[in-house]
């Protein structure tokens, strides 16, 4: 069977400017940050990004890589407002498709099931329909005759997700309490790339965890990469929680151009190994 392991840079090498890119996780939780950092080092730009947004969106927005964003929110969770996202929106830096959380879920589900849309009782009466004039409604063909919103399928060129464990074939496992929507992101994308804390033998995956933790199957995965700390500074429970002090430092730096330049120089110019080492050094300084 096919060994799908590759490096983060090789994964980013498969992506192109102008692509529609799905990013898994939720807010500041289990985001494929090592892959996002690899993306930041690349020349790729002009992206349509589909995500329940966190610092992935903030970083890509700050780097000017987003042409269009499809989202229901962008937040750092413990810090409600993502500063780079806010600043980017306030200077009109990209086009926004603002959907409700459940509409977004229906869009992913439709994308995974190759349906043109799925109906939902959400959006009606809200300004989601006003600011997305492309959205249509659909009338139930049954006796109720209800008019519902037809959420168009969210179909992507590539998905990036981060899970706790995976094998070399691309089977991937989450060990935290919430799968978020990572399987749907992979299934709704033409290609999908999984980063994980550890690559283990297939036999090891269910040695200590129940089989229903096997969220993503290899048929939906193009490439897999081992990136320890790859969700940092977002959470990757139970391997680690969110790095709150570092996230705070990120948010503070994001509020000031000089401080942000310093942050970038220190943390985002080198390789992933450089990043992890710089974070360790930073934590030592804080003690």
């Amino acid at each position, binding site marked *: 069977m096919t060994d799908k392991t590759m490096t983060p840079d090789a994964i980013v090498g498969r992506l192109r400017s102008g692509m529609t890119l799905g990013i898994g996780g*939720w807010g500041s939780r289990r985001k494929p940050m090592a892959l996002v950092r690899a993306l930041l080092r690349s020349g790729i730009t002009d992206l349509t990004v589909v995500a329940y*947004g966190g610092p992935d969106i903030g970083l890509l927005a700050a780097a000017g890589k987003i042409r269009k964003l499809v*989202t*229901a*929110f*962008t*937040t750092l969770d413990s810090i*409600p*407002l993502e500063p780079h*996202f*806010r600043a980017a*929106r*306030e200077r*009109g830096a990209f086009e926004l498709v*603002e*959907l*409700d*959380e*459940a*509409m977004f*879920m229906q869009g992913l589900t439709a994308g995974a099931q190759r349906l043109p849309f799925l109906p*939902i*009782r*959400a*959006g*009606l*009466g*809200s*300004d*989601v329909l*006003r*600011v997305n004039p492309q959205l249509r409604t659909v009338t139930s063909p049954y006796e109720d005759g*209800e*008019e*519902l919103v037809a959420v168009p399928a969210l179909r992507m060129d590539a998905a990036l997700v981060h899970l706790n464990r995976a094998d070399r074939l691309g089977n991937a496992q989450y060990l*935290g*309490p*919430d*799968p*978020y*929507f990572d399987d749907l992101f992979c299934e709704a994308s033409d290609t999908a790339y999984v980063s994980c804390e550890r690559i283990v033998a297939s036999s090891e995956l269910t040695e200590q965890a129940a089989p229903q933790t096997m969220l993503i199957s290899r048929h939906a995965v193009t490439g897999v990469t081992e990136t320890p700390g790859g969700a940092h500074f977002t959470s990757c429970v139970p391997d680690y929680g969110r790095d709150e002090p570092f996230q705070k430092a990120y948010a503070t730096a994001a509020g000031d151009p000089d401080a942000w330049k310093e942050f970038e120089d220190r943390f985002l110019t080198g390789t992933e190994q450089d990043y992890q080492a710089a974070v360790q050094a930073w934590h030592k300084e804080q003690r």
Partner: protein
Amino acid sequence: MTQTDPTAAAGAPEAAASSVTRAEYCVIACAEAWRGAGEILASPMGTVPAIAARLAKLTFSPDLLLTDGEALLIGDVPAVGAPSAVTEGWLPYRRHLTMAMGGRRHVMMGASQIDRFGNQNISCIGDWERPRRQLLGVRGAPVNTLNNPVSYWIPRHSKRVFVEKVDMISGVGYDSAAAAGPSATRFHDLRRVVSDLGVFDFGAADHAMRLVSLHPGVTVEQVRESTGFRLAEADEVPCTREPTAEELRLIRDVVDPRGLREREVRP
């Protein structure tokens, strides 16, 4: 009931009541939203609603379902911010959204802006195309308001929040739901708004917001001055009810021993 000086309550004859803080009246007012709710999920956003949901479960609504704020339904009632010891269910985001659509949930959300028909905004301030201030995004407000009962908690009642017209309708108000038609109104059910000044419902003509109780120490004038639209009110506006001694004990010793409620509400 309508004394202008909040400290004047200290001279009130009922000693127990005089020591009740504004934040504690807010907890009681929020908890009442879930009275008689039965076996549904209480989904509180914010500290005071989180304390209130736990208080409701410990007293008059024992069948409520609570979450740990992440993906678990908890079978115990730990203090706010403390870990739970009993898990009675699994509620990751996708199931949580499905539960909202199924209607077995009463959420108490926040609002950056809210208008007299209960339209709520958490998305952005100013023009959506180029906002003056970008906020969270609509999040789940559109799905919540069309599918399960919704209440609102506003810790700082002001004209900036209680506005004539919200900039981006995230949560759907009564007028907007009516205009959108029968599938929008079918399960639309805005219950109450609790602020640091009082309690409001949508019981006036055309479902306009109405003042139903004032927290002790607050005057009708104060509420009017802090509200950016004409508020319906009854001739006699009662005070928000007093907590019982047992409720006060539960709030202070069991649910919020660290006094987090006092940080969310001005004294």
